[in-house]
C-alpha cells in the first residue's frame, strides 16, 4: 500500500496496484464521515455511527442474514475510521484517502458536503459511497461521468414528489401552500421539486410564502410568524437535524400544526427524540422506505432488533441508510470478487441488491445513483405512548424517480412522463 504515497499523478495506478496486492487476511478499511458535532450529530451522526458499528460487528462475526451471511466483505474483516463531517469536508476526505489510505469512503449527510467531495472521489479514484445527502445535482451536474462515486440513498426528488402525491391522495386542501427550507442546495432543490410537482399535478396552489433561513440558524420565531400569517393550508419543510427539532419546538406551541397540514420530509428522524412535542397528525417522511416504513423482511427485522438490543432504541432512518450503503458496497465487492477498486466500481454500476429497506437498484446517474420508493404517514402515539405512523401510503420507485435519461427537474416539468404509480 506504500505505493499510494507516491506522486498524485501515479495515484490512480497505485490504488489499483495496492488493492491487487492486498492480502486476504488484511482488514478492509472504511473511512466513515458522519456528523460528530453540531446540530446534526444527535439526530444523524450518532445513529449513522451506531448503524455502521452494529452492522460491521455483525458482518465480521458472520451474523447478518442472507444474502449477507459471508463473513466481513468478501471474506475480509472490516474496520472503520469515523471522522467528523462537520469539519472541513475536503480536508478530511483527503486525510482519509491520502493519509489513512482507506479502501473506501462511506458517509456524508449534508448535500453541501457531498457536492464538495464528489469531484475529489473521481480525481483521487477513490471508491466512495454517499449515504444520505439528497441533492439531485450530484450526478446531474457535479459529476456527470462517474466511475468511483456512488450514492445508495435515493435523491431528495422522491421526498418532494411523494409529499405532493400524499397530500393529494389524503385530500389535504392545497389551495394555499407555503414552504420553509434551509438556504443551500438541499433546501432549494427540495422546494423546487415540491413546487414543480404541485404544478405538474395541477393542484392550482398559490404559494403564500417561501422561507429560506440559514442552515443551523436555530431561531425560527419570525419564520413561524410568517407561516402563521400566510394563511397556508399546507406547509412543506425539508428541515433536518437540529433545525427540524428547533422548528418543531418553536412552531408546535404556537399552533402552526393545528392551522396547517405540515409535511416534514425528514420527520421520522425526530420521532424518537421528540415524541411528545410532534403534534399528532403531522405528516412524516423518512426519505425512503426506512424505519416505520420498512418492509417486514428477515433482514429488516434483524437490523431493527439488533440495533435496538445494542442501543436501547429503534434505529432512525439515518441508521438504515448507513446500513444500506455498507451492504451495497459489500454486494458490489463480492460480485467483483476482487480488491481492485476499478473492478468493484464496475460491479457496483447498475447493481441491484437487497437491504433492510427492500431492494435497491442503482438505476440512474449512469448506474451510480440508487432509486427506491417512498412512503408517508401521519404521526401518532400508540396505546403505550410510543411514536408511530398511521395512514401510510407507499409509492414505488418508478412513481417518484425520474428515468435514467432525464434530470429530476426535466422530468417534473414534463409532468412525470413514464411514471408508474400503480
Amino acid at each position, binding site marked *: 500500500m506504500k505505493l499510494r504515497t507516491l506522486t498524485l499523478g501515479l495515484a490512480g495506478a497505485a490504488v489499483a496496484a495496492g488493492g491487487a496486492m492486498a492480502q486476504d487476511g488484511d482488514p478492509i478499511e472504511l473511512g466513515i464521515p458522519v456528523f460528530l458535532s453540531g446540530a446534526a450529530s444527535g439526530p444523524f451522526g450518532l445513529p449513522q455511527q451506531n448503524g455502521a458499528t452494529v452492522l460491521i460487528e455483525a458482518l465480521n462475526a458472520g451474523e447478518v442474514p442472507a444474502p449477507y451471511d459471508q463473513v466481513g466483505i468478501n471474506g475480509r474483516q472490516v474496520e472503520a475510521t469515523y471522522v467528523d463531517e462537520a469539519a472541513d469536508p475536503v480536508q478530511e476526505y483527503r486525510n482519509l484517502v491520502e493519509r489513512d489510505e482507506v479502501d473506501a469512503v462511506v458517509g456524508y449527510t449534508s448535500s453541501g458536503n457531498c457536492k464538495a467531495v464528489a469531484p475529489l472521489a473521481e480525481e483521487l479514484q477513490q471508491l466512495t459511497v454517499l449515504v444520505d445527502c439528497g441533492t439531485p445535482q450530484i450526478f446531474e451536474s457535479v459529476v456527470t461521468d462517474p466511475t468511483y462515486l456512488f450514492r445508495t440513498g435515493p435523491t431528495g426528488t422522491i421526498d418532494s414528489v411523494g409529499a405532493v402525491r400524499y397530500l393529494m391522495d389524503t385530500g389535504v386542501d392545497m389551495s394555499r401552500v407555503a414552504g420553509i427550507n434551509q438556504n443551500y442546495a438541499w433546501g432549494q432543490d427540495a422546494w423546487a421539486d415540491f413546487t414543480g410537482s404541485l404544478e405538474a399535478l395541477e393542484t392550482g396552489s398559490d404559494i403564500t410564502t417561501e422561507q429560506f433561513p440559514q442552515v443551523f440558524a436555530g431561531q425560527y420565531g419570525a419564520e413561524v*410568524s410568517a407561516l402563521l400569517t400566510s394563511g397556508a393550508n399546507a406547509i412543506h419543510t425539508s428541515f433536518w437535524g437540529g433545525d427540524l427539532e428547533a422548528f418543531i419546538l418553536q412552531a408546535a406551541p404556537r399552533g402552526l400544526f393545528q392551522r396547517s397540514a405540515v409535511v416534514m420530509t425528514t420527520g421520522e428522524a425526530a420521532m424518537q427524540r421528540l415524541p411528545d412535542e410532534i403534534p399528532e397528525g403531522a405528516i412524516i417522511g423518512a426519505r425512503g422506505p426506512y424505519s416505520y416504513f420498512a418492509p417486514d423482511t428477515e433482514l429488516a427485522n434483524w437490523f431493527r432488533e439488533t440495533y435496538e438490543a445494542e442501543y436501547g432504541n429503534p434505529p432512525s432512518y439515518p441508521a438504515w441508510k448507513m446500513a444500506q450503503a455498507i451492504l451495497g458496497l459489500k454486494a458490489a465487492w463480492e460480485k467483483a470478487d476482487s480488491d481492485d477498486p476499478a473492478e468493484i466500481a464496475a460491479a457496483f454500476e447498475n447493481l441491484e441488491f437487497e437491504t433492510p429497506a427492500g431492494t435497491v437498484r442503482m438505476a440512474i446517474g449512469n448506474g451510480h445513483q440508487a432509486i427506491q420508493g417512498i412512503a408517508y404517514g401521519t404521526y401518532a402515539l400508540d396505546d403505550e405512548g410510543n411514536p408511530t405512523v398511521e395512514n401510510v401510503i407507499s409509492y414505488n420507485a418508478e412513481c417518484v424517480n425520474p428515468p435514467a435519461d432525464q434530470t429530476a427537474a426535466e422530468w417534473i416539468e414534463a409532468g412525470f412522463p413514464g411514471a408508474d404509480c400503480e
Partner: protein
Amino acid sequence: MLKFTAIMLDGMNYAAWLFLVAVGLTLIYGVMRILNIAHGAFYAIGAYVCASALGVFYAAGLPGALAFAVMGVVALIAGVIVGLVVERGVLRFLYGRDEVLMVLVTYALFLILEDAVKLIWGVESYFVYQPYAYFGFVEIGGLPYQVYDLMIVALAIVMGIALWFWLERSRMGRMTTAVVADREISAAMGINVTRIFATTFAIGTVFAVIGGVVTAPKIAVTPGIGVEVIILAFAVVVIGGLGSIPGAAIGAIFAGYARAMSVHLAPAYELFAIYAVMAVVLAIRPHGLFARASGRKI
C-alpha cells in the same frame, strides 16, 4: 395589519435575544479591549448547563414555575465561575499585549471550550423545552405569540437597564468608566484595575451565559451552537460600535428588525439582511453608530 404586527413582534423579540448575546461582548471590549471570541463558547456552556440543571429539576418532579428561578441561578453561578476561571486563569497573564494577540488567545479558548463541552456533555442533543411551552401563547392582533418570547424581551430590557445603572450610578461602575477612559491614570488614582477587569469579564460572561440559558428551551442543545452566535454578536456590536452599550442595543434593534422585515417581506434575502445593514452602517460610519471619538496617543 397582521403582517405589520408580526414584524414589530418578531423584530423586537430577535433584537432582545441579540442584545442579550452581544452586550457582554461589547462590555468586555469596551473596558478591557479584548475582542472575546470565546463569548460564543460561554453562550454554549449556558445552554448546556441549563439543559443539565433543568433535566435534574424535571426528573425530581418539582413545580414547573420554579424552573425559571433555576435558570436564573444557574446563569449567574455558571457565568461567574466560567468568567473568573478564564480571566484569572488565562487572560490576566496577557494584559497589555496587542489586541490581535488577545483575539488569537480567545479564539484558542473558544476551540478548547468547544471540545471541553463535547468532553463533558458528549455530542448527543439535549432538550429542555418545558419552559418554552409553560406559559403558552397569547394572541396579539390575531397572531399567536409565545409568552416565553415576550419574557425574553422583558429580560433584555431589565438587564440593559441594570447594566446601565451599574455603570452610571454605582461606585464600581464609575470606577469602571474611569478605567475605560484611561487605564494608567485610573491605576495611579488608586483604582484596583485588576479587580475591575475581573468583575467586568465575569459580568460579560454572565450575559453570554444568560443568552444560552434562555435559548436552550427553544432549540436542540448540541455542540457547535456557539459558532453562529458569535458571528451574529459581532455583527451587532460592529453596527453599534465596539465597546458601546447603547450601541449594542441599537445594533440589536437594527439587526432584529432588518431580519424580521426580510423574513416577512423578502424572505429570499434573509440571509443577507443583517450583514447588509452592517455593510451600510460601516460605509457611512466606519467605527459603528456609537463609536466613541478617541484621541491619538503618541
